[in-house]
């Protein structure tokens, strides 16, 4: 069978490097949980106990562990000082950029790497809502948040396409993260299954869910507020096409944002269709660019 990722050869600058990177395994990475520790203290604790690590150039709160290190078996993990997280998945919380005291929704939150990162960026103050619709995944979210010492989180179990503001006095959020369920092509370096079971039907089916989740997220975010849409997949059907649907049907627009790592702009043409020029404000991150997983991220301003 042809590699499904070959459909993106026309989008990347160096297809051979792209495929080679997709075939390499990823190192274990931990993010420092700044509710409980500082990067300096985590580095010192790892050094004291002989855990091998190296810094990640673009983010001082991320540490790449040596090949034989398992993040779960160390005092820093026990203390909730670190969270095992693929480095590129630290991107959406940076793009959402919440501040302490705000009202923030993470509508597809479990198992909680980005939720706990948002809590830390909020200094554990204000209202953070972590929602998911799967009970098993919610229990992972709760235990991860507890270990990280997050105390400003409300956990809800709702279908994000019909998210209700009732528990929150009907008041909308300042910022919403939509880290959408997706076909996960970009995680191929960790889970080769993601590509082995690939089908266009699956991609198109999940795009329908993504449109519903993003649409509702825009509705529950206040005018002037921010929505960040992210996936760990390359398929334009799940990225630009979902955003195109949002800007045509809801009061919102894509805005520019900065990232400290290499990326390509979102695309404006795919298959037989074209997308709005503003898609170029989105960011596509390919595995060969920063030696990470693949990722997509866009920032929207609501009601502007």
């Amino acid at each position: 069978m042809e590699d499904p990722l070959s459909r993106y050869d026309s989008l990347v600058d160096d297809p051979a490097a792209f495929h080679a990177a997709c075939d390499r395994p990823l190192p274990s990475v931990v993010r420092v949980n700044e509710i409980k520790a500082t990067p300096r203290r985590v580095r010192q604790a790892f050094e004291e106990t002989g855990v091998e690590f190296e810094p990640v150039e673009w983010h001082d709160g991320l540490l790449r562990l040596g090949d034989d290190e398992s993040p779960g078996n160390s005092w820093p993990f026990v203390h909730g000082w670190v969270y095992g997280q693929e480095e590129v998945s630290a991107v959406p919380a940076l793009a959402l950029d919440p501040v302490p005291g705000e009202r923030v929704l993470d509508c597809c939150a479990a198992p909680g790497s980005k939720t706990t990162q948002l809590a830390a960026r909020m200094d554990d103050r204000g209202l953070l809502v972590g929602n998911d619709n799967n009970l098993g995944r919610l229990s992972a979210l709760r235990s991860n948040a507890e270990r990280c010492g997050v105390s400003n989180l409300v956990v809800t179990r709702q279908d994000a396409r019909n998210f209700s503001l009732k528990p929150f006095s009907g008041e909308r959020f300042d910022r919403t993260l939509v880290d959408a369920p997706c076909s996960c092509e970009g995680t191929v370096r960790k889970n080769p299954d993601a590509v082995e079971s690939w089908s266009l039907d699956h991609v198109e089916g999940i795009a329908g869910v993504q449109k519903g989740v993003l649409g509702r997220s825009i509705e529950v975010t206040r005018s002037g507020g921010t929505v960040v849409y992210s996936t760990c997949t390359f398929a334009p059907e799940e990225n630009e096409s979902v955003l195109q649907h949002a800007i045509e049907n809801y009061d919102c627009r894509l805005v520019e944002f900065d990232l400290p790592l290499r990326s390509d702009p979102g695309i404006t043409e795919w298959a037989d269709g074209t997308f709005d020029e503003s898609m170029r404000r989105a960011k596509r991150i390919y595995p060969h660019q920063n030696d990470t997983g693949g990722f997509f991220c866009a920032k929207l301003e609501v009601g502007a």
Partner: protein
Amino acid sequence: MTDGDEGAPIEENEGSRFDRLPATADERTVEGRPTRAAVVDWWVERFDLDPETFESYTFWEKGAGKVWAFADDIESPADVEGLGMTFLRARQEHWKPTTDAVQRFGREADRNVVVLEDEEARAFLRGEDTDPEWGGDWGYLIAAHEIASGIEPIGVGLYLYGELRSQMPKGRQREL
């Protein structure tokens, strides 16, 4: 009964939802529910914390005596799956802090903190009883150890008859 105006009615605790704790006993409407003041005083007193630590927190009961600490506030009762973190087990003779809360707030504690040696700390994390040097109170203590030039809480220990019984929950026990 001719007068319906005799103070707040007494209700039963509804265990499946979160109810905000009353500020003081005068505002209590649910029998046996601990007050916010009592919960904060217990923590501040037992571990000698700055009373301002919990100033912006709201406290909630879900289940019988399970108290949660939340850094913000929402409408009560709250029909949600989680609200802040588990904080304290009340409605029993000896109130018991949770592992999560001890790890989150215990770093600032100046009283009832027992600092374990390396080997003891590992045994405590495995869920085993230890025999540390301790001349202080009996009851629930914060078990801590030294790491990266500081004292860091590990969890809750019950000190009785010269022995520290690890209260690490099964899912948090580790062999390091």
